[in-house]
């Protein structure tokens, strides 16, 4: 079995999601990494040192500065015949590109894999994680996105894998990248953080979120939110945790003023320890929490923050 893992990076560094995908891929067979980007020599050089890789393919070209699915999918297609499996992390980029590639190859995408049974058989959550499906693929090349929280990260070593340059392929002029507005974030990345502090509609305003942010900063935590908090404009979109937002599984997840709708639980119920602070003692969030505190968050959160050194 030969597996190709598509690297997730920002042209400066390899993002942690890549390391989860590599480790998942190792369960199948020999793993090559494909770095597609522009001015991304550092990514190639560090990707090269991920433990256990066979080869690193790269295409370092200005047309790949921004990962448009149209261009990336045809480029991956051009090398696909050497592989039995192509793995992506289930990031926004992975979700955008992997199904497009699968259709080009006339295979069915296998999204959001949480467990690899054998090279044909996988487990994936459906219905917001309320059920787990075991699926078997009959395709010759399997295109997969892996749920990063379900796999450990590969580590970096000393040994360097061989590097192979791949030439750019057909470029579309029908889609143009214009700009990005990335939210500035001094905190750890939400999906990779050890601790996540999340707030919901119970916070009431974006100003009030500062009490949670103080707690997060003391803990070195990332900030998350429910959809209701995002929709109300309290916090940016990319903080949303849930079925249709980000999936997180930190060591500690603190939910304050979040009721615990199934769509929210879908994104955090695999966290190791869950703390819920909600003034409604019947809130469904308490059914998944390890430690529940039925109290007013405006009182409890600052108190907790003070106790932490």
């Amino acid at each position, binding site marked *: 079995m030969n597996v190709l893992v598509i690297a997730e990076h920002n042209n400066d560094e390899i993002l942690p999601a890549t390391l989860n995908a590599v480790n998942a891929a190792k369960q199948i067979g020999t793993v090559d990494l494909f770095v597609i980007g522009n001015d991304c020599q550092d990514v190639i050089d560090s990707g090269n040192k991920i433990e256990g890789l066979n080869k690193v393919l790269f295409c370092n070209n200005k047309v790949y500065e*921004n990962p*448009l*699915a*149209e261009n990336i*999918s045809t480029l991956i297609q051009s090398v696909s015949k050497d592989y039995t499996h192509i793995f992506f992390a289930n*990031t*926004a*980029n992975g*979700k955008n590109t992997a*199904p*497009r*590639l*699968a*259709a*080009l190859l006339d*295979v*069915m*995408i296998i*999204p959001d894999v949480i467990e690899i049974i054998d090279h044909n*058989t996988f487990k994936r*959550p*459906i*219905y*917001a*994680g*309320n*059920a787990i*499906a075991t*699926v*078997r693929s*009959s395709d010759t090349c399997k295109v997969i996105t892996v749920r990063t929280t379900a796999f450990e990260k590969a580590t970096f070593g000393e040994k360097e894998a061989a590097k192979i340059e791949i030439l750019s392929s057909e470029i579309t002029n*029908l*889609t*143009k990248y*214009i700009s*990005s*507005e*990335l*939210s500035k974030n001094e905190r750890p990345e939400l*999906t990779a953080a050890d*601790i996540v502090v999340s707030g919901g509609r119970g916070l009431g305003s974006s100003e009030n979120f500062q009490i949670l942010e103080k707690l997060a900063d003391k803990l070195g935590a990332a900030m998350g939110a429910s*959809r209701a908090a*995002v929709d109300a404009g309290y916090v940016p*979109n*990319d903080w949303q945790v849930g*079925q*249709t937002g980000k999936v997180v599984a930190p*060591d500690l997840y603190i939910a304050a003023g979040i009721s615990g709708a*199934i769509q929210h639980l879908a994104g955090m119920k695999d966290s190791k*320890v869950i*703390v819920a602070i909600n003034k409604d003692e019947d809130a469904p969030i*308490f*059914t998944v*929490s*390890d*430690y*529940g*505190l039925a*109290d007013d968050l405006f009182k409890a959160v600052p*108190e907790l923050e003070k106790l932490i050194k």
Partner: protein
Amino acid sequence: MKILVPVKRVVDYNVKVRVKNDESGIELDNVKMSMNPFDEIAVEEALRLKEKGIASEVIAISIGVTQVQETIRNALAMGADSGIFVEVNDTLEPLTVAKIIASIAKKENIDLMILGKQAIDDDMNATGQMISALLNWPQATFASKVEITDKTAKVSREVDGGTENIEITLPAIITTDLRLNEPRYASLPNIMKAKKKPINEIKVNDLKIDITQKLEILKVEEPSKREAGIMVKTVEELFDKLQNEAKVI
């Protein structure tokens, strides 16, 4: 400009689903079904483009068992002009759905297709991207803002770190994220009117598409349950548990 909106009938998002005892799937008897929430947003966006005079016609399409026609009727009641129903009784996967919709889009001279980013039953998040590949059209997934002028669409997309803005040339595919718009409710007069709007049935056999599943579902099981936790009385107790029992801070 003709807009095609694929709509899927799914278990309503408020229902707590149950796995069947024989682990063959989800219990669907007597369960409330609705239009996939992302597809309501897709219909809404198409209707707004029509109301602005940008689109001339909005067609809703659904593929599946005979009851999916109810979902098409919902779209018609919201304001879509007509529907297309493709009856398939076998289990469908996004690749098959994409092939069916792509072949119909070609015949109907569609200029723009708006889909949900994800169906909340299978959570695939794949069909729009697959149709784009099959038609070799540009794709703008996870859209939170769409502006159309002439033959191009400027789309803001929700990506991991924030928002990305791209420009695509029509014909193209857009998939909706939750924040694109707030879908309308169908008014009673419009529900009545919708009963008279046409739904054209297309036979899947006439499309000459292989509908065998490539990704077979072997088993559907309950997720592992979390062990019940405890309620603490005070913040001090919580702090103590986190520090000394769970050892996470």
